Each structure stands twice: as C-alpha cells, then as structure tokens.
C-alpha cells in the first residue's frame, strides 16, 4: 500500500516535470491535510498554518526538479515543511499583537475580548478543551519528542518514513515515540487518557 503511494508520488512528479502540470493539484490534494495539521502544531494558528502550507507547496513546486525519486516524496515534503515552519516561528518571534485598543472617548482603556461567544454544544467544547490540553502538553515536551509526535500523529507518517526523515534506525524511532507518548501522558490530567 505504502509502496504504491511512493511509486505514485514519484510518477506524479515525473509527469509534472514532463509538462503535465495539472498533476501538481493531485499532489497538493494528497498531502494538504496532513501537512497543514503538522504545520499547525508549530504555529498554533490555523491562518498562519494555511499560509505556511501554501508557501511549502509553492517551494516544493519550484524545486521539483531537485527531488530524488530514490527517496520518498513525503520525506522530502515534510523535511521542507519542518524547516519552513521553524523559519516562520523565527520570523514571528518578537512580532506580537497587542490586545489593547486605543482608549475610548472617555479615556477608559479597552481590551479586545478574545473569547469566542458563539454558542457551542457541550461535546464540542469538551473536545476543544481536551485538544487544547493535549496541545499545551505537547508544547512542554522536549524538542525531539515533540517533533516525533508531530510527524507521527499530525503528519501521519509511518515509522519507516520518520526513520528515513530523521536518519534514525527504525527501532530507535519506535522506542523514542513510545517514550514521547509516555512523557506526554505524564503531563496530561489522569482522567484524560
């Protein structure tokens, strides 16, 4: 199954390079969700993640002729995405948005209320809170654990591809991911899992 996907990816790249540019859309559609979620883990902002995802696909398209078909396309894509997300975070660092509005007519200071006032079903709220708790817990993990969890669960990469991407033996990847999830569980409330 995975082998077929790799062959398909390489075939699609070959066709695009041969002038069948319409296949680029297929390539984007195939990876957009996984890539977007993976990048979202870095940016913690859907708008930013969408921009970075788009930037990554355009970068990929520009450098498509440098893709080596002996390797997996997804490995190449996620390596570029990881670098782009880190670059984005570096650019964003120090560029914070103030929640303070200019004083009103009576000189009183005002602050934007960032809460979402739309009514949400209880279940959706619970799920959102749990997602936020998990996101915050992942943020507190060491860098290498956080990256492995992002690649495995948000990028949905198989262990073999993570091993290729990180240049690690397969056993080490499996072991480290197990340890990463163990560390994550320790950071979550007992009733979460």
């Amino acid at each position: 199954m995975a082998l077929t996907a790799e062959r398909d990816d390489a075939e699609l790249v070959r066709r695009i390079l041969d002038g069948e540019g319409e296949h680029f859309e297929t390539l984007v559609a195939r990876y957009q969700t996984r890539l977007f979620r993976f990048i979202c883990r870095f940016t913690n902002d859907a708008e930013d993640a969408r921009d970075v995802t788009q930037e990554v696909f355009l970068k990929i398209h520009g450098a498509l002729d440098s893709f080596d078909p002996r390797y997996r396309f997804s490995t190449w894509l996620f390596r570029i995405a990881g670098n782009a997300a880190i670059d984005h975070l570096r650019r964003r660092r120090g560029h914070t948005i103030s929640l303070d509005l200019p004083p009103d007519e009576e000189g009183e200071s005002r602050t934007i209320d960032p809460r979402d006032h739309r009514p949400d079903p209880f279940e959706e709220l619970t799920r959102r809170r749990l997602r936020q708790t998990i996101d915050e817990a992942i943020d507190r993990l060491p860098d290498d654990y956080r990256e492995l969890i992002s690649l495995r669960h948000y990028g949905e990469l198989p262990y073999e591809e993570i091993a290729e991407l990180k240049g690690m033996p397969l056993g080490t990847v499996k072991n480290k991911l197990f340890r990463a999830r163990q560390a994550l569980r320790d950071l979550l409330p007992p009733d979460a899992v």
Partner: protein
Amino acid sequence: MTIEPRSPSNESPVGAADLERDRKLEVLLDEMVASSPVLSADFAARVARTRPFAPWEVRRPSAWRAPLLATSGLFAASLAVFFAPLGLLSPGTALSVWGQLVAAALSSPVSTALGAAPALAVAADSLRSSLIPGTGFAILGVGAAFGAATIAALRRRTVRVPR
C-alpha cells in the same frame, strides 16, 4: 514545566499495562487530530492555479512554445494591420505605432501600451477616413489579443492564494 528525555539507563521494562495506555493515547491523539481544522476543499486547486513559473519550467523548451506562438501571432498580425494600409496611412505614423506595439510586447507591456495611446489615436483618426473596410476591426482584434495576453501574464505572476 518541561521534562527531560529519559535516558536508556533509567528506563524501566515496558509492561502490558504501559502498552495498553500507550495504545489508548495513540487512539486519543488520532481522534483529536482527526477532529482538528482542515483546509478548504478548493485549496489544492487554488494553489495549483496561482503557482508562479518554477525555474525548471522556464528552462524547459516546451514551456516557451505557447508564448512564442502568441508573440509571433501578435507580431504577424500587427505587421499585417499596420503595413497593409500604407497607401492611406503615412508610413511614419504606421512605423511609429507598430514599433511601439512591438516594444510593448517585448519589454514593459503596460507602460509602453500607455505610451502608445496617443499614436494609436492618431492612427485611428487617419483610419476613420480610410476606404479600406474592416481595418478598424483588425486593429481592435490585435488590441484585444494584446490585452488578453497582458492580463494572462500578470495573473500568472500572482503568488498568493486569495482567501
């Protein structure tokens, strides 16, 4: 609070209960990720539509086929339009307008087209009294083709996907 990675030396043997908890966390993570926001359905189409020319595309000879054909077509059409009525139009005006349109096609399309506007007005005045029917429509056709080519080129340069 952050935690340090565990070194192999302080790892404890993995028990069945640990594996079960790990499996549950995997399932929970996958569920959380599956319910997280996704991109709009037309994201791929928009990225594909608005991508700029890649360096490898520009280097490929086949990528130049369409622009070369379009340029040749415009060149030939402009020659036909501006040299056919030479008997009625003064050769100086015809050469001036034709030269500016060729420059527009080859260098800076928008600014040169604007610069050629006064000369085109002169040409239109001259042609209005011309006895050759259809010449004005031919000029309009060339102008429309040129405009369409310019718009297509400008759209292709757009990099950002509209939100």
